[in-house]
């Protein structure tokens, strides 16, 4: 006969319990089922405490209860290992609101590390997501991966080895990424098809590209805008791009510091950018074919100012890079703009202001039309005044969490 636990249903239908509790899980046999059961049993306000140790997991974990904290004993001590993973697209999936994930590590997932989808007030604090075999094409795509989420806080996380982006925020709104480290990924930090991101105080190093701000066509959320990328250390991004082809980041030249593709109203300032052989900063259009009349492929209203630039752009890896280098007598400016200002069917003219010269303007007539480049070099480019977006403010309870 089929026994039916009616009491369970009654419990899940109740609203927030008066008393919150801590559900503790320790490593050992059946860790998969014990952690997952805790993630199902938690009630709003509860904490799922993962004791120190190593958890060998075989399937994806998921959380769909609002107002839950999942907490470890620190990213070096509580380790969720997915080396033996047999199923699911990620290690841990969160689909509920006001969830905080903190103080643990996720290792060697077969797909993405930790993902939130459609979550409001999602916080990733003091986490480590790592593929322990180093950078490999067979590693999962994203380390920390909020998508279609609102009020996203990523603070003090470390991501290593992602075959796409270490920290990837997609189709989301109101975002803070700070005090985090992304190393040995294809892209360190990527903000894609999103609105209002503050990215500051991070270190992006030994990736193929350090920090990317992208907008892509044919997606439910498009027209990314209003980002501030500031006070980051974007240093020695020198890992050969190892992304599987087809993915947009496979086109990021090895040795790129900061790259803005499409998007509006992006402010890049007071970053330290050094040791990136292709470019310190690149502003480029989306160059692939697309069929989407609502999409604008140009970067526009972009401000680049007061960045501290070290040695960059000595060996540009982008298409036509060696030609450009030869043309310029071997000396390539650290900042490059493709110079596309208009696009068929779009009324507005793309404007930028780059005050950290020298700047290489390729003056392309159309996105990616490198064969018709008319490169010019100038100390600065553009004078457009664009008000800086206001600092991102998260709801108070989330802002007060602290990593």
């Amino acid at each position, binding site marked *: 006969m089929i026994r039916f636990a009616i009491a369970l249903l009654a419990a899940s239908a109740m609203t927030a319990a008066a008393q919150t509790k801590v559900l503790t899980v320790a490593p050992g046999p059946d860790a998969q089922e014990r952690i997952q059961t805790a993630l199902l049993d938690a009630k709003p306000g509860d904490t799922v405490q993962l004791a120190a140790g190593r958890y060998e997991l075989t399937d994806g974990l998921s959380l769909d209860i609002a107002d839950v904290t999942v907490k470890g004993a620190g990213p070096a001590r509580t380790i969720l290992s997915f080396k033996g993973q047999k199923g699911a697209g990620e290690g841990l999936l969160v689909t509920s609101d006001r969830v905080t994930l903190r103080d643990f590590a996720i290792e060697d997932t077969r797909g993405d590390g930790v993902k939130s989808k459609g979550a409001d007030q999602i916080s990733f604090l003091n986490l480590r997501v790592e593929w322990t075999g180093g950078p490999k094409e067979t590693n999962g795509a994203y380390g920390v991966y909020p998508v279609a989420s609102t009020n996203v806080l990523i603070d003090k996380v470390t991501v290593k080895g992602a075959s796409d982006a270490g920290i990837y925020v997609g189709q989301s709104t109101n975002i803070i990424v700070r005090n985090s480290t992304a190393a040995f990924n294809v892209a360190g930090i990527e903000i894609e098809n999103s609105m209002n991101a503050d990215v500051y105080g991070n270190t992006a190093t030994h990736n193929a590209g350090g920090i990317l701000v992208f907008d*892509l066509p044919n997606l439910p959320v498009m027209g990314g805008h209003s980002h501030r990328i500031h006070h980051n250390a974007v240093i020695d991004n020198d890992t050969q791009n190892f992304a599987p082809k087809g993915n947009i980041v496979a086109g990021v030249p090895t040795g790129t510091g900061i790259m803005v593709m499409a998007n509006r109203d992006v402010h890049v300032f007071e970053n330290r950018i050094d040791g990136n052989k292709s470019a310190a900063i690149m502003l480029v259009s989306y160059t692939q074919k697309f069929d989407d009349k609502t999409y604008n492929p140009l970067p526009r209203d972009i401000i680049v100012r007061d960045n501290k630039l070290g040695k960059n752009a000595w060996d540009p890896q982008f298409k036509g890079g060696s030609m450009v280098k030869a043309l310029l007598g071997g000396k390539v400016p650290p900042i490059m703009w493709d110079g596309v200002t208009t696009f068929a069917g779009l009324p507005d003219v793309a404007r930028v202001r780059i005050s950290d010269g020298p700047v290489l303007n390729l003056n392309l007539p159309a996105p990616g039309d490198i064969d018709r480049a008319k490169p010019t070099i100038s100390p600065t480019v553009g004078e457009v005044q664009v008000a800086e977006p206001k600092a991102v403010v998260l709801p108070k309870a989330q802002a007060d969490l602290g990593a």
Partner: protein
Amino acid sequence: MAYRLFTDAGGRHANAGLTPYALNAPLFSDYAEKLRFLYLPPGAQARYRPDGVLDLPVGATLVKTFAYPADLRRPGERLRHVETRLLIHQADGWVARTYVWNAAQTEALLKRAGTRLDVRFTDGQGRARIIDYAVPNQNQCKECHQLDEGMTPIGPRARNLNGDFAYAEGTENQLAHWTRQGLLTGAPAPKDAPRAARWDDPAEPLEARARAYLDGNCAHCHNARAAASNSGLFLELEETRAPQLGIGKAPVAAGRGSGDLKVGIEPGHPDASILAYRMASTEPGVMMPELGRSIRHEEGLALIRAWIAGMKTP
């Protein structure tokens, strides 16, 4: 408490209140046979809808037993029941539960956190197979059954039910049968209702079969209101836009799932199409669907490859 869905402990004999049904384009689940039943509270009726899932009343319960015959070439014989899933329409929405059958096949117990089971059978080519069958955890039920914030059944759509079923008292179109039995109201004659092609009926047009297959196997996540909305790849039967169907569409968050290929569907070239690549894979992080299978659906893959191969190059 027991639901008394079945008259015997082993769940082999459905109670009189259960109506068995089948779908034109079901989800592939590692070659499991699925025994589906609809329960409606006495007097309650489902209301017809031409699109989407039928409007099922509160109290409606969908029952689905996953079972393996000893030999796939002899369906229905020597069936081992693996799990029975219930989808129950409560006043505040649908809930999903799954019950795993014991080895003795005498009892099925609620399993909320999912598990893996060894399942053995002889496949269609006569090979002995052992698979690592995954029972989903309760959240994973929702990953597939999510629509906006809530949960929904997937299968019982008019177009999926518009086909014949061999009832004990004779074969009849399911929409007609449900209407005659008073289970369904508002349905037109079957010939005037939408119908998804039977994916495995070679007499039907290739494209209709392929689109029905994608609708049944992918579209529960790959639509604008569900788990894969952010992919921009939408595979419902109603979708007509080429990029949304994957034609010439670059991947977004596929990672190594792209298999070094550039677009979802490259017309004329299944080997250059990510869609076929991910259907062929059994590696987590690559394979699609992400949940619900651990082995390849050879026949489904062949269908999709043939459809892509026959597409005109633009």
